[in-house]
């Protein structure tokens, strides 16, 4: 547990605390599985409520299946969201690391937890997910890190999303206590039919109640039980109860209103129908006020226990959401589409709705990548460790990591380091950007404004690429200009394994629109994008491609199968969900299906994309 490097005399003071851990491999991160989940919950709850921020980090079974599915610099927020949505709906979260932390001067006090998840169908209802996709390369990489798949699958914690939980509740048909919201809805004007209905039910209830209470007096047991059968009495637990069938929500209200007259001894319960709505109202007879309270408490505990069992890991998400603490993430668009789709509800069809819906649960999400932007250009931002190293070289902002957690001993492998690195990076960035913890503590308003500046911006433009960067891409990413979607044309139908340089050469002499400055970049093997420097040229080019007048070398290329389409076709590809493995195929299919539909249906809303690592502030949209 001793740090590998020797501290210099100057820095030695910062190592006075024993718990300080600088070597990531020694960070004690508590590993949580099904076995120790329940016992850890209260501890986690305390840490969450006493923290300033909560860092989150996910380990998924994959991200993108084809090169063009990756969010890239030519994506608008909308297409970026659609790509993230596609991934979030198919892949699965296997590890969810959270780390509530406090910032104190140059110290980060962190309580990291790493949850192992597996979407087990505990209720046999095809939930939380019927199936999920795994990418081999992701699993292999996890295996290399020593990930234990058996623990994950045998012992992972299951969960249900909020939306799934409400469906499940209805399907299980558990009686629900009437809360005041449903009860006190405006008393309706009574029609004759209503009055008849109420009176009939009232007399039934009265008879049944009398029959039950009569049993104290010595009537014959047989008569009592017969009477009970005739009057439709049943048992609810140890108490007698009676079911009143209803046909509409209005009748539910009427019955509840009527039962208020008996509120001294009767407790009304609502029995939900399987297809939604209400099937019946059940009145439970209690013997006294104490007994009534007891019943209500019993119902509450029953519901609480059952919900807990059903929710599983979502309990933690609910705790985070209830705390309303700011969340810190790295690559937040990706992580929060996953979180939304697995733990809240199915992802909405567009970015705006997503942001609105997400905000209801998590009011503040801070992406460290966005903080980084204020510092200056950092090229490779997908790798947290590299970013930390980069900052270390450029700024003097020592951050001390204090992790008071006791990791479970005899734990073979410790996973979830990323979440602690995010805390560390965030601490560094705060110190560099002078979002000092003192300021945070002195005034809540200041904190709010300082954090609000950075919150809810879903960084959607990862700058690095896994291929060896060739000159075109470098030239491209260094380019800081914004490019209007209008000036972008997608080209495909050329021979495979062509390079952007060769394609550019071929285009240069083919038509006069290419006399002006333009740029070419490969999206994947099958498709390239061309960016025209001068506005209007893209339309000229598209028109030329579609007219018979096409001539010269360009005609040759068109005859060989070259095709072109504007940015709106690409947007349509993303929104229609044609995620073919080659972009060219997807574009072809979209064009084919679009020919029979009206043109006007689609408009280019976000008309600007960014060619550099610029950011798009979605809060402003």
């Amino acid at each position, binding site marked *: 547990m001793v740090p590998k490097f020797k501290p210099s005399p100057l820095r030695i003071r910062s190592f006075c605390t024993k718990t300080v851990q600088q070597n990531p491999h020694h960070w004690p991160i508590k590993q949580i599985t099904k076995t120790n989940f329940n016992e850890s919950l209260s501890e986690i709850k305390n840490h969450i409520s006493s923290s300033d921020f909560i860092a989150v980090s996910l380990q998924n079974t994959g991200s993108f299946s*084809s090169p063009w599915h990756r969010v890239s610099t030519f994506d608008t927020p909308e297409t970026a969201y659609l790509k993230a949505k596609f991934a979030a709906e198919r892949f699965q979260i296997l590890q969810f690391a959270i780390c509530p932390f406090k910032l104190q001067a140059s110290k980060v006090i962190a309580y990291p937890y790493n949850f192992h998840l597996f979407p087990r169908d505990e209720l046999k*209802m095809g939930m939380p997910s019927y199936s999920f996709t795994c990418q081999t390369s992701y699993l292999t990489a996890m295996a290399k890190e020593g990930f234990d798949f058996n623990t994950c699958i045998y012992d992972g914690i299951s969960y249900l999303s909020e939306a799934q939980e409400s469906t499940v509740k209805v399907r299980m048909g558990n009686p629900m206590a009437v809360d005041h919201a449903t009860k006190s809805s405006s008393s309706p004007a009574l029609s004759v039919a209503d009055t008849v209905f109420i009176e009939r039910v009232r007399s039934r209830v009265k008879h049944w109640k009398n029959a039950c209470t009569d049993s104290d007096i010595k009537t014959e047991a047989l008569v009592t039980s017969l009477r009970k059968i005739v009057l439709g009495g049943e048992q609810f637990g140890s108490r007698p109860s009676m079911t009143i069938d209803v046909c509409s929500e209005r009748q539910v209200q009427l019955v509840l209103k009527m039962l208020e007259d008996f509120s001294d001894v009767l407790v009304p319960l609502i029995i939900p129908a399987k297809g939604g709505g209400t099937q019946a109202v059940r009145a439970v007879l209690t013997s006294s006020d104490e007994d009534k309270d007891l019943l209500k408490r019993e119902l509450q505990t029953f519901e609480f226990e059952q919900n807990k069992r059903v929710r599983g890991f979502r309990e933690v998400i609910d705790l985070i959401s209830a705390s309303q603490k700011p969340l810190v993430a790295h690559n937040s668009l990706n992580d929060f589409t996953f979180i939304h789709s697995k733990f809240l509800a199915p992802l909405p069809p567009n970015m705006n709705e997503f942001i609105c819906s997400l905000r209801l649960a998590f009011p503040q999400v801070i992406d460290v990548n966005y903080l980084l932007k204020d510092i200056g250009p950092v090229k490779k931002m997908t790798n947290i460790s590299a970013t930390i190293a980069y900052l270390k070289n450029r700024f003097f902002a020592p951050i001390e990591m204090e992790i008071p957690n006791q990791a479970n001993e005899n734990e073979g492998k410790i996973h979830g380091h990323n979440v602690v690195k995010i805390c560390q990076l965030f601490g560094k960035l705060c110190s560099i950007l002078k979002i000092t913890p003192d300021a945070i503590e002195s005034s809540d308003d200041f904190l709010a404004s300082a954090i609000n500046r950075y919150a809810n911006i879903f960084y959607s433009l990862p700058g690095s690429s896994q291929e060896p960067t060739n000159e075109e891409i470098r030239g491209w990413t260094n380019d800081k200009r914004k490019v209007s979607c209008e000036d972008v044309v997608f080209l495909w139908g050329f021979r495979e394994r062509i390079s952007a340089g060769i394609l550019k050469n071929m285009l240069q002499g083919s038509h006069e629109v290419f006399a002006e400055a333009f740029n070419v970049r490969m999206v994947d093997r099958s498709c390239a994008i061309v960016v025209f420097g001068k506005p209007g040229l893209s339309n000229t080019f598209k028109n030329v491609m579609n007219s018979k007048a096409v001539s010269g070398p360009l005609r040759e290329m068109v005859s060989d199968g070259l095709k072109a389409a504007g940015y709106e076709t690409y947007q349509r590809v993303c929104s229609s969900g044609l995620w073919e493995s080659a972009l060219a195929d997807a574009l072809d299919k979209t064009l084919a299906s679009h020919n029979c539909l009206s043109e006007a249906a689609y408009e280019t809303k976000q008309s600007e994309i960014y060619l550099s690592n610029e950011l798009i502030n979605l809060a402003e949209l």
Partner: protein
Amino acid sequence: MKKRWPITILYRAFSSSTTSTTASFPLKHVKKSNFDSALSSLRHHIQAADFVAIDLEMTGITSAPWRDSFEFDRFDVRYLKVKDSAEKFAVIQFGVSPFRWDPLKQSFITHPHNFFIFQRQELPLDGAAYEFLCQTTSMDFLAKYQFDFNACIHEGVSYLSREQEDKALKHVNSTYKDESLDSWHSLKEIRDTHLFNIPDILFAERMKDRLSEWLGGLLRNRDEGSEVQPSFNDSKQQFETIFFKMRPAISLNGFTSHQLRLIQLVVRKHFKDLAYLRVSGENSCSQNVIVYIESESVKKMLMKEVKDEQKIDAEMSIKASIGFRHVIDLLSSEKKLIVGHNCFLDIAHIYSKFFGPLPLTAEEFISSVNKYFPHIIDTKILLNSNSILQQRMKKSSTSLSKAFSVLCPQIALGSKSTHLSLQPSVKVEVEVDDIRSSNWNSGVKHEAGYDAFMTGCVFAQACSHLGIDFKQQSSSENLAHNEKLREHVNLLYLSWTNGEIINLSTGNRTSESLASNKRKNHYPKILFECIVIVWGFPSHLKAWDIRECISKVYGPTSVISVYHVDETAVFVQFSRAEMVSKFLDLKESLDRNNDPISVLHPLAKLLEGGNTCAASYETYKEICSSTVSKVLFADQAKAVGIKWKTKLVESSDKTKEHESLRKVKAVNSDPSCGERTKNKNFDDVSNDSSYSQLSSDEIIDSFYTREAKQI
């Protein structure tokens, strides 16, 4: 079908309780580390074998509930469902158990192998990433049987299909064939870049100086005939003088890729007698060297030499990635009799994983399979179609473990109880790593190696019941040609659910004869031209409501059955084919006219909400052929891109109508038949969506996914 599971469970519970304390079944587990040695010994065993039993474990069976196997699957739809399953899910365990008759011991010798397989992306192929689907219930099921996922993912044997291998080889050929596309091409691009900034220019100058210094020293030394001075190697070891192909060279270490590019540029620009090469080093990491060359021709020779070497390396690594496919190639080339249990899906998996993409139609698939594996026997068909064996099975379930325990009790319980069995039983001995044993404990069910072993034992015993005398059988004669087996060879269940059997050698389809059929629910013969699929209707409508709704329009006998595909879609089978187009026409016009008359129409209940869609059976097939798999059928239809609400069909010609009329009359002879069917379906659906919370149902459901394939 479902009702038989508890029996299976009981058996399983019984067998495990008797043997849980003792050592495991002798099984050869094969992983990455011991694959090569296991393969070479397996080669001999397979060559000597009379037949080879196989079994596969997958990560799932159906990618969506509506893709499950139904009675309403026409054979082409059934194939599409199997194809979808084989394409989406991964095989993670492969059991191979070659059986050989040992005339001396008068028993079979088998070598059960249990391969963990996991396809890794080992070659730098472009395009889509390898991915596969996991069905959560299947994973959970495997976990219940203690499947070792770590062994699979960490140490599983990888493989390449024949198609992937061809593609990779082609890729290598084109890379190394085309001169212009190689390194020259990338150099050309470098020339385009200019040195932008001062640091780059200074660095390039420094490199130029150092290279000319080295070159100068080299030439001087050569003239003087002395050794290359070692002093050149600087402290950082960035420039290390080495010999590359018997030529003096510099190995570049510790430069960034940007610096390397600059060096490359300097070499191109200023040194005619130096060549910059990137070669693969010893531990597969690439090494950058600058080689001294005398002339352009020498340079070309050197380049060619290097390129040829690289090509060979690349080809070698492709060959090395074939991995587990060697086993499949062996089975195919040896033309051995392959024995599986309800193995149509298994065969489809083998095809898609180790040969190439599955053909679009069942016919093409069958003929290709027959080419690769000329003799396949399915023990499940064997047990169901032969009356002697049916008798032996005592009308019990033909699930693998059940068949094993009924037919081979002496093997199931180890040889301890051999004397207990009165029937003539085939003796089987297991040999693993040259250790023979005839005494063992029951293995873990749903471990591919043990399942393959059980399948083989069932087959051997079945052969003996059929009167095949292994003592008489000469070793040279192929068991598949035995006249007692001939009628069973190459028959596979296309679908166990409706008993449709396909003959791989002829492509003929037959339905299982009713006499031998033990299944309880006989459906009226399904006429696919009488079927309409309806989806997107209000969710509270159940089969009964829909039937009632349509009956109000066309009369009480118009609907034969309504079958839930899932909660969002139903098949409606009409009594006559022409009603399909009538119904679709009516629905279309009701959708179009939103007047009071259409609102009051009896069908309006079905169309409520405005999302109800309807089409003929052909559309169902179309939707099944899509690669997309949404959980709900209504969502799937949307995802496939269906934007219309009704797809009309042209009314079929009269002769066809007459024919179907006649058929329908025969079917309708039992008027209550349709009714019963409907009720059963209705119950089924409520079971499937698990409204009930009975614990027995939970057990049943948990077995559902895996067992479906074997029952």
